[in-house]
Structures are given as structure tokens and as C-alpha cells.
């Protein structure tokens, strides 16, 4: 309890693994911090820590989320300050404990501490699945970014997550209004959509029935960014980075048209000079 209304808690979730939750968490956090917001991004994947790698701070992890919950260190000691943005902090998952180390009270304590510290946004990077880590990542959320690949298993799992967001969250339990749900499509390939091999934005939106906050095109930039430990939103040469930038703007209420959603004409020249 007691998380201030000024702090907005956003869970990045999906049900299915490997769809881009951590990539998205990292880029949204950086994008918000770039705009001067004070942001904490928390890895809820206890035992399979990865956000630190994507953020490029893996060698600076001393204390983690579970240490704070167990009072083995202060919140301040565990927050890793980003080297690029002063207002961005990372809270790593514990690598050695199991998922039972997370408790509702413990998570509440950490979130309340961050709210008291004047954070504008807390991004909760959910683990895959619907077990404890995922359940706690979404429990306190005000908003949810549901990351979906245009692919059958991802869409079905996301719908399951939407059901949980509507029932197994603090907002649902207290009747405080629903968790605001945003659809973020990743690995979108307009050429395959045009040839009928991939579901379109409209298809996925129609099935899930929630509003689209962003469409991230399939891009080589994403792997390059994770290789380097630099969130892809900072790669202004990559369409994925620009699409994340747009998504952050939309999360903050700006309206921006979707980009990179139309198929490219595959002339010989463009094949030679693009890629």
C-alpha cells in the first residue's frame, strides 16, 4: 500500500517467452529517462536475470531485488545508476535465489520505497509464464504493456495475460479501475504480412481487442543492441529504435502515426542497396 499516485507503475508482460519483454522494458525505461522522467526498471525474473545485460550494467550488479526485500541492503545500495541518463536506475533480479524469494509484501515495500523517492515511472520487467514472478510483476501495475509477436502462441498467451490483468491485480481487487492495457507488437515484418504469411496489426488487434501503443519492426538492430548492451532505442539508425521512441511518446499521451508498417517494394536495386 501507500504507493503514491504520482508514481506510475508499468508492467511489461506477455505470457510467452522470447517475444521481447526485456528489450522492451529497457527501451521504454531509457526513452522515458531521455525525456527527463525519473525511472526505475526492475527485473522480476529471479534466477534468470537478463535486464542487466540488455542495459549493459551486468558488471555493476552488487545487490539485487531480493537483497532489498530481505533487508540485506538498502534500496539505494541496490539501485544501479545508468551511465547514460542520470534519472535512470536499474534493479537487477537475484541470480541465485528461486522465485519464491519474491513476496507480495516485499515487492510492495520496494515499490513504495521508489514512490517515496519521487520516481515518476517504475517499469516491471516480467518473466515469462504466469507463475509467481509474473503474477507479482503485474500485481501492482497501473498500466500494462503486453508484448506480442504476430504468431499464434504469442497471441493466445497474451489473451490469457489480459484475463489475469483484469482479475489478479491490486486494481482489480480494490475496484480501482482496470489496469490500462497497451498492445506492443514486436518482430513485425510488413513484407510477410503483405504476402499473407503473418497476421497484420489489425488481425492481432481484433483478436485481443486492445489499443496499439507501438509496432516494432523485425530488425537486425535489436540483436546488435543486445550484443552491445545498449538499449535499441538509442540506435537512431535502426527502425526498431525509432519505433520504440514513438511508443514512448504514445505512452506519454502524444499521438503519432505508426511507422515502418508498409511492405517494401523488392526491386533488384533495393535488394542490393538496402539490408
Amino acid at each position, binding site marked *: 500500500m501507500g504507493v503514491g499516485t504520482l508514481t506510475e507503475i508499468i508492467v511489461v508482460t506477455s505470457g510467452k517467452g522470447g517475444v521481447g519483454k526485456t528489450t522492451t522494458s529497457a527501451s521504454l525505461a531509457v526513452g522515458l529517462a531521455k525525456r527527463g522522467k525519473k525511472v526505475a526498471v526492475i527485473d522480476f525474473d529471479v534466477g534468470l536475470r537478463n535486464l542487466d545485460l540488455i542495459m549493459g550494467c551486468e558488471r555493476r550488479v552488487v545487490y539485487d531485488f531480493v537483497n532489498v526485500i530481505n533487508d540485506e541492503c538498502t534500496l539505494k545500495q541496490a539501485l544501479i545508476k545508468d551511465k547514460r541518463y542520470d534519472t535512470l536506475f536499474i534493479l537487477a533480479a537475484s541470480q541465485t535465489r528461486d522465485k519464491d524469494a519474491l513476496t507480495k509484501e516485499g515487492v510492495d515495500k520496494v515499490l513504495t520505497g521508489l514512490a517515496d523517492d519521487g520516481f515518476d515511472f517504475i517499469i516491471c520487467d516480467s518473466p515469462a509464464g504466469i507463475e509467481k514472478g509474473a503474477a507479482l510483476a503485474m500485481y501492482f501495475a497501473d498500466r500494462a504493456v503486453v508484448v506480442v509477436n504476430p*504468431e499464434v502462441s504469442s*497471441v*493466445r498467451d497474451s489473451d490469457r495475460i489480459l*484475463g489475469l490483468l483484469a482479475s489478479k491485480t491490486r486494481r482489480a481487487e480494490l475496484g480501482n479501475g482496470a489496469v490500462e492495457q497497451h498492445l506492443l507488437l514486436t518482430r513485425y515484418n510488413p513484407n510477410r504480412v503483405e504476402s*499473407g504469411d503473418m497476421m*497484420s496489426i489489425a*488481425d492481432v488487434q*481484433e483478436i485481443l481487442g486492445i489499443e496499439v501503443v507501438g509496432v516494432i519492426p523485425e530488425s537486425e538492430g535489436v540483436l546488435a543492441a543486445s550484443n552491445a548492451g545498449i538499449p535499441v532505442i538509442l540506435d537512431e539508425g535502426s527502425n526498431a529504435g525509432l519505433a520504440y521512441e514513438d511508443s514512448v511518446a504514445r505512452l506519454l499521451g502524444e499521438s503519432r502515426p505508426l511507422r515502418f508498417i508498409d511492405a517494401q517494394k523488392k526491386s533488384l536495386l533495393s535488394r542490393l542497396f538496402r539490408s
Partner: protein
Amino acid sequence: MGILDFFKNKPKNTANVAKERLRIIVAQERAQRGSPDYLPTLRREILEVIKKYVNVDPDAVLISVERDGDQEVLELSVALPEKANAALDNG
């Protein structure tokens, strides 16, 4: 003609297949979501009672809980075999 056919012969639109399959399974799973877990047992027992009087198909009994505003309605639908021409559809 042959050449035209070759160019027209696009691969099957698998995206549409995916969408249709998802539409059905998602609707089904949403209907089950939040429904009480005694439903399958209730359905089975109702079926047994009905079978004492009418020889219905096991698939003929459909049961669901619908939410209508603040009210929950237990919806029960039994399709009788063709001989019995009176349709039974009680809530």
C-alpha cells in the same frame, strides 16, 4: 495461361488461417475464464439426470455462466434428439 497461373499461384494465406483459429480458441477460453470450477461436474450430473428421461447426446448439454452487469446467470441449454420436437432452453 499456364504462365499466368504460375504467377497467380500464391501460397495459401496462412495468416488468415492463424487468425481464424485464434478467434475461435480465444473466444472459447474467454468464455471459460472466471467461470466457477464446479461447472464440469454440474454438467455431468445434469446430463445423467436428463438421460433418465430422454436419450440425449453427451454433447447436447451446454452450460455456462454469463455475466450481465452485476448479475451472474447460469445458462443451461439442452438440445433434445429430433424425435422429441419440443425444444428445451431454460436459464
